[in-house]
């Protein structure tokens, strides 16, 4: 999108005269939709989370009749009301906190997630910045957020926050590795880091009926998909891997001392990160913007629709996890990563290589 805008701007006389201004304008114009998308995503996802959890728990969730003091039809306005509440809430910074870092932390976390969004394509055209190493870029930017988490935990000057931050650092850094390695299986098959090529490699059908997405390509990629997805869930701190904010142990973990708008940035980022993990999984393994019925419903807006549906489905699975599983313990989490996920992801790489060379 940035390139596209730059092309347009070069045709406008006064803008083409100052390339710096044109670049800033182009970046801002493509950044704004991402920001809006993240906000809307959080609103929708929070509402969905409430309703999904409610239905799983045999209750109704937010409900109300009409607009007024109630939360709207089916509680549709509940998250809006929440957002307004968070915006108008008193901003508390603990007296003993490290003030500068305390203020900075949520923004670092948010920025890490925001820049990652830039590389995420919604269909073959709609992408803020079309890199030729998009998948690598997103993985790299995804780890920037952990600095924000550690800063938040450290600067709060609260022992619970510190525990949350330490757990988070250990967890996110550990699970980056299996997540990256399982994506490597896909990269081996396509020979490219660009999402455009990865998705293009998944067109057509396998065995006549199944779309030839990488998840159906061979048993090892099928396995790699679940490895990536579970490691991704661990990276975004969702149950059963929500140790950094384990509410029954660490009160609220690294964001114990945060409230109001600053806290809502953590929240926004959590849901945006979920979307990124779901989006990358959809692009790399589920054919991205490709239709599940090869040859039908393809191209243009259909692409966005399919991509969003796949991502939404994966987010739904994450919610399903959350409302079903208990939480692991720190050592169990680490053991699972290093003793199971790591060897398994190496195995997928070797397996995919062998499959591609000899069996295909």
């Amino acid at each position, binding site marked *: 999108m940035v390139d596209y805008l730059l092309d347009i701007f070069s045709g406008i006389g006064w803008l083409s005269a100052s390339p710096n201004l044109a670049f800033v304008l182009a970046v801002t114009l493509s950044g704004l939709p991402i920001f809006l998308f993240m906000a809307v995503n959080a609103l929708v996802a929070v509402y969905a989370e409430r309703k999904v959890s409610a239905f799983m728990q045999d*209750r109704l969730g937010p409900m109300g009749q009409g607009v007024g003091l109630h939360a709207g039809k089916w509680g549709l306005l509940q998250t809006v009301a929440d957002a307004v509440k968070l915006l108008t809430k008193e901003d508390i910074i603990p007296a003993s906190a490290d003030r500068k870092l305390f203020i900075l932390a949520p923004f670092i976390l948010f920025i890490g997630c925001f820049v990652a969004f830039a590389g995420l394509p919604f269909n073959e055209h709609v992408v803020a910045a079309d890199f030729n190493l998009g998948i690598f870029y997103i993985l790299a930017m995804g780890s920037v957020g952990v600095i924000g988490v550690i800063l938040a935990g450290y600067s709060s000057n609260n022992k619970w926050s510190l525990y949350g931050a330490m757990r988070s650092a250990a967890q996110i850094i550990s699970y980056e590795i299996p997540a990256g390695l399982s994506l490597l299986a896909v990269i081996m098959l396509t020979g490219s880091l660009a999402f455009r090529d990865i998705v293009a490699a998944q067109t057509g059908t396998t065995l006549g009926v199944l779309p030839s997405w990488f998840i159906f390509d061979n048993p090892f990629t099928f396995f790699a998909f679940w490895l990536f997805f579970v490691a991704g869930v661990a990276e975004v701190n969702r149950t059963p891997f929500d140790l950094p904010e384990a509410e029954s142990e660490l009160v609220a973990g690294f964001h114990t001392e945060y409230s109001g708008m600053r806290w809502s940035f953590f929240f926004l980022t959590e849901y945006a990160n979920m979307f990124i993990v779901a989006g990358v999984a959809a692009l790399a393994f589920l054919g991205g913007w490709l239709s599940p019925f090869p040859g039908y419903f393809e191209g243009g807006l259909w692409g966005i629709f399919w991509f969003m549906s796949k991502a939404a489905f994966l987010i739904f699975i994450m919610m399903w996890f959350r409302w079903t599983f208990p939480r692991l313990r720190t050592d169990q989490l680490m053991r699972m990563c290093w003793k199971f996920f790591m060897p398994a992801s190496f195995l997928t790489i070797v397996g995919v290589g062998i499959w591609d060379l000899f069996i295909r």
Partner: protein
Amino acid sequence: MGVALEKELGTVHGEEMILNIGPQHPSTHGVLRLRVKTDGEIITEIIPYIGYLHRCFEKHCENLTYEQAIPFTDRCDYIGSMNNNFGYAVAVEQLMDIKVSEKVEYMRVIVAEMNRLASHLLAIGTFGLDVGAFTPFLYCFRDRERILDLFEMLCGARLLYNYIWIGGVSHDFPVGWVEKTYDFLDYFEPKIAEYNELLTYNKIFIERSADVGVIPAEVAISYGVTGPNLRGSGVRWDIRKEETYGIYDRFDFDVPIGTGAMGSLGDCWDRYYVRLRELEESVKITRQALDSMPRDGDVHAAVPKKIRPKAGHVYSRTESPRGDLGFYIASDGSDTPIRLKMRSPAFTALSCLDEIARGWMISDVIAILGSLDIVLGEIDR
């Protein structure tokens, strides 16, 4: 230290940090403060500080007549109020040699077992919550709600019933209550399988609770740990069977004990599973009692006009959902007791926390605390 953990972590040690869990903490089941020394995530020492909810129950009782103390027993263990009323009433009746009518005996057993269901449901649900599973908690509350509705229909209160009186109960069962209770039991019995599917045999849940916080039987007895916690350690000890009070000897029920099925004997999972199995037993008892209860009779027939026991004392204990609930009552022949001591099962269960939770992680301490099923109102009195 847990053997598995020790193997895993070797001899890596860092600086010790003092951490206060509570009194404002989501998982201490009330206002409990644990001052723990931690080495990283590992706990090296736990000192429980209790008394935040001390409401001078025993001092109050010295200034109250015997029947006025009943509402105070409600407020001690607010999760198992019926059983507290029952225990207190049994103690005073023993002191005064009161024989209550057949119908009242049945009614007491019914409400006490229903209350045990409600209490165990809360224990199971919050234990799930403590290890991070949110949904079983709400499933348990959904079913507990129905029991509370029944109690509301019975005596107007949902938590603090003041239902069992000395020599009787406050109200007869209202019209339709027995049928509704049957309906509830029919509805509830299949739900136990649902808890099993959702939580009991969940791999992560087993990982978190099996082998964790083992209480060996001797330690449990020495610490006075009773009730489901003691049975979880494999000791078949239930006051309802061993020192029958009321009419518990007429019912056919089992006393489930821990077997170490998922880990070692006396771990958190065993304690949890004993509670779950006791749900079935309580349903069984309630059903039998409803079947054979005499339908007519005056529930106030044996209520004494004036409660003035002769000088003497009594120590009687009953099986509350949390264990041996003892009442030591000393009377000097006046309207008020000179001493009324409540031996609370949660108090004794909490006292062994340091012994069993030392060397485990912060997460495990929360799980162990949840598996002990403490009620702070009863510990602090």
